[in-house]
């Protein structure tokens, strides 16, 4: 496969994963803004997904429709959902002959969906949840379409590599934000509420209830989000899937490049696997998550260098 195409395919998946993660995060945040209208602030989300100067974010901080419009529909915001979908589609355009027609049409439809006036009106003046549900559902359609139409070749592997790499980064990031928030203003009573929202956003709430019988503790949440092998959004699960999909590329790789990547992915996987940070203090948990994050970025850079020809 062309290096450029492999790179594009990887980014289709990364942007779609980012879109999905972001929509879920915004959805739960929106719900929580309705729960506790009094002191809800979008500050931390805006810091993550907006490039507005601090002063301007403070102006819209407490105004949910404005925040949602900015984060979802604003084409001037580089990190907005609509820009992510646009970029995913642009990458798909450049790799059209290596993804199935169904996947291309699904992304193309998504691109038109987020420009649909009805969605815009729901977010601006109506019930944003309806818009969220429609959008998230279309994202699910994308996953299903990839799964049931793509041949199990290089293209499929690169889609999965992009997906799990991005997902691992997202999960680590979300966990880290919550830990930081707790660190900055310890509020033991609302502790559980915030963890609940994190788990909702990662679609891991039901699993958590079953595993930990409803007891909300930082230790348990960290354990599930980092280590749970049955939780498709846990960092370890993502790394294992990344390994699995990468190993399938062996036949199509230069031996040297393969060895380099295998080393990096293996090292990071083991770094996560053979740690037990759930029992450590919040400070060292945060440092650990930072380390994992930079190792994941390192993997992405190495793919660029060894597989995508971007030296």
């Amino acid at each position: 496969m062309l290096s450029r195409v492999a790179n594009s395919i990887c980014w289709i998946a990364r942007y779609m994963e980012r879109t999905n993660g972001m929509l879920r995060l915004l959805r739960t945040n929106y719900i929580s803004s309705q729960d506790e209208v009094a002191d809800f602030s979008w500050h931390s989300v805006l810091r993550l997904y907006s490039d507005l100067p601090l002063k301007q974010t403070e102006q819209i901080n407490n105004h949910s429709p404005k925040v949602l419009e900015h984060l979802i529909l604003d084409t001037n915001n580089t990190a907005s959902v609509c820009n992510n979908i646009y970029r995913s589609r642009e990458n798909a355009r450049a790799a059209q002959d290596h993804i199935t027609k169904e996947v291309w049409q699904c992304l193309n439809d998504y691109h038109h969906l987020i420009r649909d006036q009805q969605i815009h009106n729901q977010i601006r003046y109506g019930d944003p949840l309806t818009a969220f549900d429609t959008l998230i559902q279309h994202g699910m359609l994308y996953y299903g379409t990839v799964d049931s139409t793509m041949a199990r070749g290089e293209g499929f592997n690169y889609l999965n590599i992009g997906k799990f790499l991005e997902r691992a980064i997202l999960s680590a990031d979300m966990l880290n934000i919550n830990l930081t928030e707790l660190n900055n203003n310890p509020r033991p009573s609302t502790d559980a509420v915030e963890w609940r929202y994190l788990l909702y956003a990662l679609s891991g709430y039901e699993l958590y209830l079953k595993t930990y019988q409803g007891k909300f503790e930082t230790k348990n949440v960290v354990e599930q989000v980092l280590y749970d092998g049955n939780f498709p959004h846990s960092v370890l699960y993502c790394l294992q899937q990344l390994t699995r999909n990468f190993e399938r590329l062996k036949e199509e790789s230069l031996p040297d490049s393969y060895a380099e990547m295998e080393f990096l992915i293996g090292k990071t996987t083991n770094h996560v696997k053979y740690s037990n940070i759930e029992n450590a203090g919040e400070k060292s948990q945060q440092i650990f998550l930072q380390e994992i994050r930079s190792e994941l970025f390192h993997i992405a850079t190495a793919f660029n260098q060894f597989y995508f020809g971007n030296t």
Partner: protein
Amino acid sequence: MNENLLKGYANNNLIWDEMFDSSQIRSAYKNFVAAIEDLSTEQMNHKDDLAKKLFMSQGITFTVYSSGEGIEKIFPFDIIPRIIKADEWKHIESGIKQRLKALNIFLKDIYHQQFIIKDGIIPGKLIYSCPNFLREMMNVDVPFDIYTHVAGIDLIRDDLGEFYVLEDNLRTPSGVSYMLENRGITYRIFPDLLPRNNVRRVKEYPDLLLKNLMMLANAKTSYPTVVLLSPGIYNSAYFEHTSLARLMGIELVEGSDLVVDNHIVYIKTTKGLKQIDVIYRRVDDEFLDPLVFRSDSILGASGIYSAYRKGNVAIVNAMGNGVADDKAVYAYVPEMIKYYLNEEPILKNVPTYQLEIPEYRKMVFEKMNEMVIKRTNESGGYGMLIGNAATEEQIEAFKIAIEADPRNFIAQPIINLSSAPCYINGRLQPRRVDLRPFALYGPNGIDIVPGGLTRVALREGSLVVNSSQGGGSKDTWVLG
């Protein structure tokens, strides 16, 4: 019967209409009209909307990049097909084959012995002054002596229904994907009508093209690697490039994917470099090799010309074809046919006056309002003046430009293009059309899929069918 549909279909006797013969419906259209005349306005509007939606949802669009983000546009499509009878098609087919054969021999001759110049059929000055004549192609042997692998010949019809060749597009003609996609849309908006009318199929096109491309490398390897070279996603024909690559199952590459080492062309893959044997390029000559042509181009690859010259890679279409579809050289195509093939041209040329010749210039200047003035090396409906629609100032400006550089202009009498019915504002209205069939020239001969792209000037009264100037397209049916 829906009275509105056909009501007031203004049939102008000075224009050949594809559907109406004075007040009668022509035989080719009888079946089709019978099938739609009972449809209500709502039903027809529904079909019109459905067509637009299908184009949009399938991403059959071109992107206009402005203010950072692309705006999706669909190439306007009219739902009423243009129908061509079997015997008309036979005439077109044999005419194009003859013409293409002669043009191909001409290219081989011009880039080798140049008998046609030595025998005084075409003035050498005309050839050497053509900006698309490539010195670099002199004495380069191309596989199977084929230059014009893919050609799109533009045909028009005058007021008597006679077909004329308006242009030979021998470089990188586009539009074939719309021929294929328009058909795909038609069978969804008019179920059953295609088989009932015995319409011939066009979907063989990608298979025929791939077969030809593979054959070009057959002398060297049994498993040739064929790629399609595109300028990239910002090109307005990018949709066509991806859809052809997908339909043929070949790699779609961009200039940055290519490397040339020791006169061999490679693509950069995840598994290292891979040699390629055939390039179907949709990049113009001047951008192909920065070492030989435009040095600021990043759309091609350095060294590709020398690899081509050595015969290590086949390039389709050949470089330097522009000399044969130059609008001033066009005037000599009937002579070429007689000279090379000893045959009379089957398809007529539009009378063409080279403005370099003083007598012609004088004659044309006297009746500018009956003439179309064209620049010899521009396309897309740009750089042209239609005498009867131009203002005095425009005409004067053109006269000055012509005097300054007469080689670059030709004049042709205004031909009243034929009209075909279009569904506009709830009823059928006549609009002017042309026809671009696509011919494939391979080692085993010339194939033309029965059909082509019918382009239509959607503005009332307009004669310009180019998509950049408010043109659209129609599905084209050739009856069996």
